[in-house]
């Protein structure tokens, strides 16, 4: 007895403190048996690379849980804080770009791995008895992962997530009977907003992953219960899960992570090789401009792995409501139904072949639809546009009218057919160009929003959208296009297409309005009656044109230095930079402008006493206040009065009705025309 005690004591001493602790825990938990069971699973026929897919999926999911929890620690789900907090993660927090990048791209990797895992299970027939239930669980897991991908896309609350979600939830709304209620439940009310985000977030980070974890535990324990579905025939000796298969799994996991990191870091590498600065915030996942329900978003597309569904809806052109019902609900439902039946069908040899063929066909169909969607969007990038020049010319000539086309081609039906084919191609190019332009615009809007968010004043409490809506650089071009571009051009005279654009306009080119360069053009006898100034207006033969073409060309009266001085004075009046060599001339210029023998003979300028009525008051010309005034009401006696050509009074309300533009909008236009907007330091 005492001998025994001695031996135990000696063994205990040999084990050391860790070993003793281990014994203590094992006595009370039995953990050694558990670990043993987990690791020492027999792998029939030895470890193989082809068994790694399931493990990489578990790894991808773990990555999503880890990165997701850390993202959660910085994310705020509401319409005024979602974009803002994601911006902060991506662009301000150290390492935020990497965290978000991994979460974003691992989600995509997971979809690919899912497809591979499924494909392998089907090809190997691993769904057959007794593994049917586990196969079904796998399908449910797949749906859960896709659900998380769909809900995650909205969370940054940017334009692309917002519009993609509108399409997705509207499709939920066409489910018979419960559709509208389902839709309203998911978006948290009749309109998209705070509760759409809180609900999507709860689904994305709570309900769906919670369900997934439960199912995954069952999936894995059933997998262990049934054992690995070994590749037949078994020719090699069995091996143990640990360490043989685990090693292969771990290498595969590392490879997956390497690919994800590669995708994130590739642009950085490229920038470094090109010698450009690397901006960490621009690496990894994109962040679009903040969601704006009132702003068209023509670049609306789902994430690439849902593009096939998006494209599928186009297949049912002309089917009316049935088409959409079929495309969004019936067909995907049927496909899932067949997949659920696979384990049963697989009992027959033919059934198994059918399953394999069906899965491959679905994957091929998905690939094809995705390719079609991409081709439609990016067609203009790879089509030979030169070959369409002829077709374009004829289209412009005939206005696309079939009768005129027939006449133009001498009623030669072969030629007409060929031309109509060309026109179809042309239309596809145009649609693709529209998409590419929309994508470019979306990128520019996103970059601007991010620039604004980085101001030292930070984002106002009302959120980023408010700031974007008050930004002249973002809003100016839109307001101009909508209200001014019908008459005015706004194009750099040095730009490639400037001449054509200016020739088409019916009022002055306002690019650089207020600048010395603009003023110089106005005072140039060769330009003043051209289309960039008064050429296409009622003032074409007016006093100003007359003055510039006759008086200004008389060097005895107006020396070159005088004109320089006026240019300098007017640029200074507009608050624009005065060219260095002219700075000393500003005072002299002001005297000339004010002089009642010179400009002041018609124009009121400061206190020169010239009465209003003959020409616009040019005190403060080109400045904000002046611009706001003339946009609001050019018919005011301070400006053109009764001589106003066709310009509407944008700020003047007829009694009881709204003016075409609000004061704020007119201010935005004025600021934009003056180039007066926030620029980050160093730009």
């Amino acid at each position: 007895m005492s001998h025994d005690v001695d031996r135990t004591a000696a063994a205990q001493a040999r084990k050391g403190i860790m070993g003793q602790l281990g014994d203590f825990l094992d006595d009370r938990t039995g953990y050694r048996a558990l670990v043993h069971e987990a690791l020492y699973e027999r792998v029939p026929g030895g470890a193989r690379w082809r068994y790694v897919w399931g493990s990489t999926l578990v790894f991808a999911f773990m990555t999503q849980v880890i990165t997701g929890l850390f993202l959660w620690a910085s994310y705020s789900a509401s319409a005024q804080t979602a974009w803002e907090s994601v911006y902060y993660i991506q662009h301000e927090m150290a390492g935020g770009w990497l965290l978000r990048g991994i979460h974003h791209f691992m989600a995509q990797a997971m979809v690919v791995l899912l497809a591979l895992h499924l494909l392998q299970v089907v090809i190997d027939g691993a769904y057959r008895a007794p593994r049917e239930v586990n196969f079904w669980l796998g399908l449910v897991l797949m749906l859960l992962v896709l659900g998380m991908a769909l809900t995650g896309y909205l969370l940054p609350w940017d334009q692309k997530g917002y519009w993609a979600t509108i399409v997705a939830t509207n499709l939920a709304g066409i489910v018979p009977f419960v559709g509208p209620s389902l839709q309203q439940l998911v978006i948290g009310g009749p309109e998209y907003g705070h509760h759409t985000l809180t609900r999507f977030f709860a689904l994305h980070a709570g309900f769906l992953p919670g369900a997934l974890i439960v199912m995954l535990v069952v999936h894995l324990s059933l997998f262990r219960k049934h054992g690995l579905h070994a590749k037949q025939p078994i020719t090699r000796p069995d091996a143990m899960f640990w360490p043989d298969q685990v090693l292969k799994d771990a290498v595969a996991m590392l490879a997956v992570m390497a690919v994800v990191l590669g995708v994130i870091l590739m642009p950085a590498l490229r920038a470094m090789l090109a010698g450009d600065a690397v901006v960490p915030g621009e690496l990894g996942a994109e962040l679009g401009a903040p969601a704006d329900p009132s702003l068209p978003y023509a670049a609306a597309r789902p994430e690439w792995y849902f593009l096939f569904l998006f494209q599928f809806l186009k297949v049912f052109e002309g089917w009316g409501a049935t088409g959409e019902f079929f495309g969004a609900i019936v067909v995907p439902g049927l496909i899932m139904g067949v997949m659920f039946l696979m384990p049963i069908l697989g009992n027959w040899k033919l059934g198994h072949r059918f399953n394999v063929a069906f899965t491959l066909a679905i994957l091929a169909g998905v690939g094809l639809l995705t390719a079609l969607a991409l081709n439609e969007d990016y067609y203009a990038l790879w089509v030979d546009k030169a070959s369409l020049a002829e077709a374009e010319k004829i289209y412009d000539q005939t206005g696309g009218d079939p009768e005129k086309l027939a006449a133009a081609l001498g009623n030669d039906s072969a030629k007409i057919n060929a031309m109509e084919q060309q026109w179809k191609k042309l239309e596809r190019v145009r649609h693709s160009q529209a998409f590419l332009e929309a994508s470019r615009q979306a990128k520019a809007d996103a970059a601007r929003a991010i620039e604004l968010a980085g101001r030292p004043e930070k984002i106002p409490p009302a959120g980023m959208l408010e700031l974007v809506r008050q930004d002249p650089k973002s809003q100016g071009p839109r307001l101009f296009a909508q209200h001014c571009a019908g008459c005015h051009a706004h194009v750099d005279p040095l730009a490639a297409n400037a001449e054509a654009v200016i020739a088409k306009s019916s009022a002055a080119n306002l690019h650089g309005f207020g600048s010395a360069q603009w003023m110089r053009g106005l005072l140039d006898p060769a330009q003043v009656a051209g289309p960039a100034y008064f050429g296409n207006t009622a003032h074409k033969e007016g006093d100003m044109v007359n003055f510039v073409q006759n008086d200004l060309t008389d060097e005895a009266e107006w020396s070159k230095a005088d004109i320089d001085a006026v240019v300098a004075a007017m640029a200074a009046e507009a608050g624009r930079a005065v060219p260095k060599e002219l700075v000393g001339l500003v005072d002299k210029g002001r005297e000339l402008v004010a002089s009642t023998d010179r400009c002041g003979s018609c124009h009121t300028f400061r206190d020169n006493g010239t009465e209003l009525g003959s020409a616009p008051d040019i005190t403060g010309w080109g400045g904000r206040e002046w611009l706001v005034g003339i946009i609001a009401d050019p018919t005011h006696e301070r400006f053109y009065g009764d001589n106003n050509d066709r310009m509407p009074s944008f700020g003047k309300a007829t009694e009881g009705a709204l003016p075409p533009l609000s004061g704020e909008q007119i201010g935005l236009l004025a600021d934009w025309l003056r180039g007066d907007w926030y620029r980050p330091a160093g730009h």
Partner: protein
Amino acid sequence: MSHPEQRRGFLAKAFAVVCGGLATMVPVGAGLWAFLDPLRRSAGVAKFLPVAELAAIPDDGVPRQYPVITDRVDAWTGFAAEPVGAVYLRREKGATEVQALSATCPHAGCFVEMEPTGRCFRCPCHNSTFTLDGGIVAPSPSPRAMDALDCRVGKNGEVEVKWQKFRAGIAGKEVQG
């Protein structure tokens, strides 16, 4: 086993299930009760909103896009005079009436835009195309024409549009929410 004992066993089981079930039902029920709250919310009564001035709408039969501005409530946040969407207004030569179309695509809700050529409307999502008066250009993925909105011209010449949303993806025009 005797009968009373069997009965006692059954009662115990049933009672256990009922007790456990009831206890669990409480949190689930409370959760669902709150979760279903959005079903009680509706978009409210549609209002006529001033969008533009009749005189400012060019009478050339070409639709133009106007923002719709109104007060908006998003759960706990109230917005005053926010742009909430857009409509297209179209006026024929000399007409004193205006046709208003919602810019929301009846297919799945994207923002319908004018083709740059100005000849038709086109949705950037699935290429549904519509004529300038909103009619469907076949074949189209969209199940119906663009949604016309009720529209009236006030005493002072302001154009007012009844701002409503309609269910997407169905053939009929049903008010949403």
